[in-house]
C-alpha cells in the first residue's frame, strides 16, 4: 500500500494531464488551472515550512557544535530574520525596496558577474587543441567571441555575418539534435513514471 498509492496517484494525475492537453473544453482548462495553479500555490506555501525547519536546524546545529565557519551560519540566520522582519514591519515599503535595491540586487549581480572571471580561467586551462574536434571547437569559439563584439566588426567587416552564419546553421543544427533527444528522453521518463516502471525517485527500486 505504501508504494501502490503513490504509484496510482502518479498514474492518475500524469494520465489526466496528458489527456487534458488534447481537450480544449473549459472543463479541461479548469482542471488544469486547479491542478497547476491552485494546488501549486498550496504546495508551494507549505513547502516553506519544511524549508524553514531545515534551514534553522542545520545552521543552529552548526553554531552549537562550533563547526568550521559556524559564524557564517550566524550571519545566514541573522540575515534571514532581518529581511523577514523588515518585510513584515514595513509592509514591503520604501525601506524594504531599498534593501532590495542596494543589498539584494548588487549581491546577485556580483555573483553573476563572477562568471566572467571563471570563464576566463576555465578557458585558459581547458581550451586546448588536443585533436581535430578540439581544434574545431577552439577556432569556432574564438571566431564567435570576436565576432559577437564590436571589435570583431572593426577587425574584419565580414566577421559579424560569419558569426551569424555559425549561430543559425551549425549551432542551430546541433541544438535541434540535442533538443530532440532531450525531448524524447523526457517523454520516455515521464511515461516510465506514469507506468510505474521507474520508481527509484520514490525511494524504491
Amino acid at each position, binding site marked *: 500500500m505504501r508504494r501502490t498509492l503513490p504509484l496510482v496517484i502518479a498514474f492518475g494525475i500524469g494520465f489526466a494531464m496528458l489527456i487534458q492537453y488534447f481537450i480544449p473544453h473549459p472543463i479541461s482548462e479548469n482542471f488544469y488551472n486547479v491542478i*497547476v495553479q491552485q494546488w*501549486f500555490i498550496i504546495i508551494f506555501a507549505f513547502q516553506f515550512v519544511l524549508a524553514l525547519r531545515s534551514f534553522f536546524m542545520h545552521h543552529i546545529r552548526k553554531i552549537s557544535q562550533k563547526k568550521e565557519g559556524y559564524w557564517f551560519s550566524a550571519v545566514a540566520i541573522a540575515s534571514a530574520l532581518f529581511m523577514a522582519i523588515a518585510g513584515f514591519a514595513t509592509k514591503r515599503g520604501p525601506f524594504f525596496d531599498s534593501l532590495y*535595491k542596494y543589498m539584494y540586487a548588487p549581491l546577485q549581480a556580483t555573483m553573476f558577474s563572477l562568471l566572467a572571471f571563471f570563464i576566463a580561467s576555465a578557458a585558459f*586551462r581547458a581550451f586546448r587543441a588536443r585533436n581535430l574536434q578540439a581544434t574545431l571547437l577552439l577556432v569556432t569559439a574564438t571566431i564567435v567571441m570576436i565576432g*559577437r563584439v*564590436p571589435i570583431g*566588426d572593426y577587425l574584419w567587416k565580414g566577421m559579424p555575418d560569419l558569426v551569424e552564419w555559425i549561430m543559425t546553421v551549425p549551432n*542551430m543544427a546541433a541544438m535541434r539534435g540535442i533538443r530532440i533527444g532531450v525531448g524524447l528522453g523526457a517523454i520516455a521518463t515521464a511515461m516510465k513514471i506514469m507506468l510505474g516502471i521507474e520508481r527509484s525517485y520514490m525511494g524504491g527500486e
Partner: protein
Amino acid sequence: MGFWQRLLKLDRRWIFLGIGLVVIFPLIYPLKLPVKPTKPSMDLFNYIDTLGPESDAVFLVNGSAPSTLPELMPMLQAILRHCLTKGVPVIFFGGLYPQYIGVAKMAIDEIIKEFPDKKSGKDYVFLGYIPGVSAVILSIGIDIETTFGADYYGIPIDSLPMMREIKNYSDISIVIDISGTSSPEYWLMYGQERYGVNFGVGCTAVSAPAYYAFLQSGQMVGLLGGLKGAAEYEELMARNGYPTGKRPATVGMDSQSFGHLLIVLLVILGNIGYFVTRRAEKTRGIEQRRKR
C-alpha cells in the same frame, strides 16, 4: 621551470585581475565602438516600429532577476522607451517569479521619468507578480482581468481605461519576454503555441544560441541576445531618431570587446604553452631513451 611551464601554472587570480582591468578601463574611458545590428534584433525592432497608438498592446514581460539585471535591464528600458515614444500601449508584467518584481519596478520608474505625460492605466499598465508560472501564461489567454485582478499599484484592472478593450492574447500584438531563465520556453509552449500570439525574446548571451531554432521556425518574431542584442536595439533606436538615454548596453560593449579579446589571447597563449611543453617533454623522453 621554463617560461611556458610557468605560464601554464599561472595562478588564476592573475587572470581575474586582468579581466577586472579590461572590463573597468573602457567603462571609465568609453571608446564607443560602433555596433552593427543583426537580423534577429532588427526583426524585433521593425515589428515594434510598425505599431502605433491604435495597435494592439505590447505585452512586455520582465524575466530578469537582479543577477541578470546588467545584461537585461538595457533591453527592458529600450523597448519600453520605444513603445512609449511611439504611443504604443504597453502592458508591463513584473515577472513570473517573486524576485523579478523589484527589477521591473526599477525599470519602469526609471523610464517613466522621461515621459512625464504618460499615465499608468492610460498609456501603460504595470502588472505585479502572481504565482503559477505556466498557469499564469495559460490564464492570460483566457482573461487578463481575472488572472491579475489588479495592477501592481492595487487598482482593479477593469477600472483602467487602457484595459477596457484588452481581454486576452487576441488583443495583444506581441509578447516579449526579457528573460534570464528558460521562461521563453514556457511562453512558447503555453502562449505562442497554444494561443498563436506573436512572440519575441530578449535573453542573456549564454541562452541565445538555444533560441535560434525557434527563430528559424517562425515561432519567434525576433531575438535580442545578451548585452550585444541590447546594444543593437539602442543603435537601431538612434538610427531612427528615437531617444536612447545613456545607452548603457553600448557602453558595456566596449568592456565586453576587451574582455573577449583577453580571453582569446589567454587561449592562444595557453595553446602555445601546451604545444611547447609537450614538444619539450617528447624531446626529453627521446633523449632519456637514447641514454638508456
